[in-house]
């Protein structure tokens, strides 16, 4: 993931408009990576990583699919350069997964009984109202709520 402007990478037009936000998000990610683990549970230390990654991908996705402010070329460029997660965005395009938090939460192999994470359950169907899913700290990513 290039953080430094090198000469080899050719930035398509429109890049200057989105660059500051992307750099900010990168910085946030760097911060999440280097945060100390004190006072946090073992799983909790990873949550900011997932959160920032979601946020970043969300930004790019929104720009292209929702607001349509960048070109396809620029969008592909972002994906290639690692500013957004391609597979996560692929999920967002599906109905019912528009707000998916991370890819781990829908992976049945990662869960007992081959189910998905509790954060995927809509709030009105759950018994416990406040949850933080153990993978990414998500508090509910069902499309309904």
């Amino acid at each position, binding site marked *: 993931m290039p953080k430094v402007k090198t000469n080899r990478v050719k930035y398509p037009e429109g890049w200057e408009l989105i660059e500051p936000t992307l750099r900010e998000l990168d910085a946030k990610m760097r911060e999440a990576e280097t945060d100390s683990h004190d*006072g946090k549970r073992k799983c909790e230390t990873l949550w900011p990583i997932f959160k920032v990654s979601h946020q970043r991908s969300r930004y790019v996705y929104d720009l292209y699919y929702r607001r349509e402010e960048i070109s396809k070329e620029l969008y592909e460029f972002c994906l290639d350069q690692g500013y957004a997660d391609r597979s996560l965005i692929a999920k967002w395009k599906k109905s019912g997964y528009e707000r998916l938090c991370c890819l781990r939460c829908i992976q049945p192999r990662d869960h007992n*009984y081959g189910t998905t994470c509790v954060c995927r359950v809509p709030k009105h169907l759950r*018994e*416990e*109202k*406040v*949850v*933080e899913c153990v993978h990414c700290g998500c508090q509910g990513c069902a499309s309904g709520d």
Partner: protein
Amino acid sequence: MAHRILRDHEADGWERSDFPIICESCLGDNPYVRMTKADYDKECKICTRPFTVFRWRPGRNARYKKTEICQTCCKLKNVCQVCLLDLEYGLPVQVRDTALNISTHDSIPKSDVNREYFAEEHDRKTRAGLDYESSFGKMRPNDTILKLQRTTPYYKRNQAHVCSFYIRGECTRGAECPYRHEMPETGELSQQNIKDRYYGVNDPVAMKLLGKAGEMGTLESPEDESIKTLYIGGLNSRILEQDIRDQFYAYGEVESIRILAEKACAFVTYTTREGAEKAAQELSNRLVVNGQRLKLTWGRPQAPRPDQDGSNQQGSVAHSGLLPRAVISQQHNQPPPMQYYMHPPPPNQDKPYYPSMDPQRMGAVISTQEAGGSSTSENSGASSSSYMMPPPQPYPPPPYGYMPSPYQQQYPPNHHHPGPMHHYGPPPAAYQYPQQPGPGSRPPPPASVVSAPTPDSAPTGSGAPSVSSQEPPAQ
């Protein structure tokens, strides 16, 4: 411990099984249970051999439970794999062994290689189908153990553990914390050790239970020397007078036997006090007639009936009045006091109507009802007394004039005061009638309770005098 590398399942004596051996309480209240099975997932807490771990959630408000000991160990002591309590009685190993006088204790080695060898040998024999000397199937139940046993499943033990961060005041998880935010119980009972519990040695819960068992076994003789009558409860129509006579004639000359079919009880009167005492002593926990287990206590002389408006309980217990009050109330509590859909309709008023017969009352402590239910507590202040149909007057006050009503006022409706030992009936908080014993037929339980409300009844001092003034002259 030996370092375990799986080479060959059979040879190493690692255990595999298909379904856990667990008790009802540990399985939970939900008829649908999803369970994971993991072969050789953990080592048995007793014999440290790897075994198949099953993990499930016993109900909605429960934590996940898993099997803690292997099936070999569990079969050796006939206990549940999770809670290590006996499968049949729900009692700790020590209690069951003492009560039934069996001792598997010595034959099981407890240390190191010896133990592993024994467990493996045992396992091998079982798998080979050889009959080992398990005597658990042939044990005959004893009265003591029948009294001690747990009859309904106890789901409180499936609750989540106490949040250790909360204890220190540091729980940052807040609402989503799955652990209980309560202070832990302290005291002797909280220092339990799984090995002690399994081998039946030095188990604090067991000691407590055995202590209780020792005390409750004795049926004390009443102070009133003239009482020669024993009350028998739990009768059914198949039990004839002759059957009762057969049981009781051996202890002394029987003056009379009176059976009251509608109350499912009988009274046996001896000509001599000694005969009655002997019978009580011998049969007190062991009375079985025609296969039916019966309850035996001392009878109580009929109290002089005070004049009361409303239906008169005491009088309408017309049979012989030898019924201890506590027992009357108990009888009516026999139908399980649970809020099920099909309540029998309240009986019509020509039969005696006890407050305890109203199924709505049973344990359901609703504020209006409860306040109204403390019928003689005119001091209830709340107008709920008028709201209730004229509540039948309770029994005349017990000898020491203790009324539970002022006591009840002090507590929020749903508080069930733990109170004294409740061998003889439901907790006092919900009910109006006093749980008082017949003179001396029980160890004085409310004595401790009497002292408790006296500081409390000071504020309702106005109430108390009014209560007592209403009451008919004591007997």
